[in-house]
């Protein structure tokens, strides 16, 4: 199979996966006993108003028909109207999506930057103090609750050290003084491209704590995965060959061994995107981050099912695509993989 055909094939599969997710979440959210119509009309509803809302939202029609309406809307890019905010869900999601994905990408970037070298060195210096330290770090990263860790970071870096801001995505006053031209919605990227360095630094400062909080879990996973694979690979005959021919140590570890050891870690990185997305629910609440997680959390609490469905679709799509990218990277890394 050629690469293009493979990508097309995977994209088709992705559509099936997303369709399945939509279907399941749609029916689950509708069978939960709640009355969206009552929520829709807000406080002090009249019977007539609720009846009218029921009509407008197609709530008095059979479930299967409602599902049909939803799918038709979905094909037109219409995710319905949020019951809580009364905005089109698609519009709400747009800004939340870029906020969250900027955060998640940054967190994963930190996780890769720390996790891979830490994994390599703990494998090379197996059972040394560095290995033990990284083991402690990895296990705490995987086991410490995110919300606890985030709050501790806030205490240390905001309350005691006054180094970093407490919460939010960007300082409002900074934004007013140096207006940011939004291109992609990824503030770091946008401010860098437009040369708005004041905002860039401010956004970066805001991002550090939530990103580290989110990165803890993937750091742990990646470190342990890279370590165990490196230990295995370093026993291989081809690594013995590299030593026997006098290649320098660093090149053996980071070129010849790491490339062989990285494949499972890549899968972990792909999967950990899903975790960070879930982790973002809590982290965004703690750090008041205007992202998908916070939006989803509020939506769930107010039984705002069009919004919940919207978040689910976005998350599932992102997840499917990230894993597709990971698979493609793997194909590029290992010439033996047949598509």
């Amino acid at each position, binding site marked *: 199979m050629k690469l293009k055909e493979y990508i097309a094939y995977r994209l088709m599969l992705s559509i099936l996966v997303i369709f399945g997710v939509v279907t399941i979440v749609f029916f689950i959210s509708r069978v939960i006993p709640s009355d969206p119509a009552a929520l829709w009309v807000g406080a002090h509803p009249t019977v007539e108003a609720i009846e009218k809302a029921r009509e407008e939202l197609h709530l008095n029609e059979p479930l299967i028909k409602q599902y049909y309406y939803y799918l038709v809307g979905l094909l037109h890019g219409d995710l319905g109207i949020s019951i809580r905010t009364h905005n089109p869900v698609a519009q709400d999601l747009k800004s939340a999506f870029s906020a969250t994905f900027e955060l998640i990408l940054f967190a994963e970037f930190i996780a890769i930057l720390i996790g891979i070298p830490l994994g390599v060195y703990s494998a090379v210096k197996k059972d040394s103090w560095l290995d033990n330290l990284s083991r402690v770090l990895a296990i705490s990263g995987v086991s410490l609750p995110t919300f606890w860790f985030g709050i501790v970071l806030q205490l240390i870096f905001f309350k005691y050290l006054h180094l970093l801001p407490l919460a939010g995505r960007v300082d409002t006053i900074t934004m007013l003084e140096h207006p940011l031209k939004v291109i992609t919605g990824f503030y770091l990227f946008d401010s860098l491209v437009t040369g708005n360095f004041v905002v860039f630094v401010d956004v970066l400062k805001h991002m550090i704590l939530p990103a580290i909080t989110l990165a803890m879990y993937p750091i742990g996973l990646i470190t342990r995965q890279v370590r165990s694979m490196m230990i295995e690979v370093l026993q*291989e*005959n*081809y*690594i*013995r*060959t*590299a*030593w*026997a*021919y*006098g*290649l*320098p140590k660093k*090149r053996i570890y980071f070129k*010849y061994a790491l*490339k*062989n050891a990285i494949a499972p870690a890549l899968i972990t990185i792909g999967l950990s995107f899903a975790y960070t997305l879930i982790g973002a629910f809590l982290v965004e609440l703690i750090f008041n981050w205007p992202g998908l997680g916070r939006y989803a959390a509020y939506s769930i609490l107010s039984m705002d099912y069009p919004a919940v469905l919207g978040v689910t679709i976005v998350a599932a799509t992102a997840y499917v695509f990230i894993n597709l990218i990971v698979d493609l990277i793997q194909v590029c*890394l*290992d*010439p*033996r993989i047949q598509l």
Partner: protein
Amino acid sequence: MKELLSIENLYVNFRTLWGLVKVLNGVNLKIYEGEVFGLVGETGCGKSVTAMSILRLLPSNAEISGKIIFKGKDLLKKSEEEMRKIRGKEISIIFQDPMTSLNPLFKIKEQMIDIITTHNKIDTEEAYKKAKELLREVGLPDVDRILNSYPHELSGGMRQRVMIAMALSSNPSLLIADEPTTALDVTIQKQILDLILNLKEELGFSVLLITHDLGVVAESCDRVGVMYAGNIVEIADTEELFENPLHPYTQGLLSVIPDPRYKKHLKPLRGQVPSLISPPRGCRFNPRCEFVRDSCKLKKPALVEYKESHFVACHLYGGNPDD
């Protein structure tokens, strides 16, 4: 003949969970310039450990003592960085299993160029030319295609040729060939062996050929050392060794080569290879030896020159005090 490598009283122990494994028990041997020295013995007798000791590539749980004099300098006294510059440049090795000895994720050219540029001050382009030249020298056709292939796209024989080309890339003085033909088909075995011998004639390096195959020894070696349980028990010129084996173990080994001319029952060696955690006292061969005497169980026999250039470590032949 000038001495190239001299191993003196080499002891290697491995610390393991089950105790200290005494793998090499005072190995002595010399390799001269331009010769092929064969090291034979059963699996686990310490042949490969001897080879890896020369390159100082033993695992970290190994304890090593003795002397390995290469070109007048003791390799065991060199720093890690000095050793790195010797590996692949002055002493090269080819391994038993060409299928797993090349990195599967890098093209042949990347691996070869890396080795060539590590030991020679030349740029990538020149290194590529050199790699092509080397591959032609080891008799590979279509060298550009091979350089742009991944290891899994080549056959075992081709990969072993690539390994040989890599090993010879910096004109080493000593080539260690650790069972270079064991993993290959019989027809390819012969080709690879001939290739090594021809290149040796051409380039003038010495070869330490490690094998358990006495046929390979007879065909290619100038001198042979026989190893048993971490000791060299006998060293002689190849012809002399086959015609006039002295050590009971060597005699045992030669008596189990089937000879199609005579229908005779092969006489296997009785007993089995001893545990190296608690090896027998004295001569390590004594529990299996037909001619065992009291002194064999007390003292380890030294390797002494019984006849001109024929060494044996056995109490039967004297040379040791109390014999």
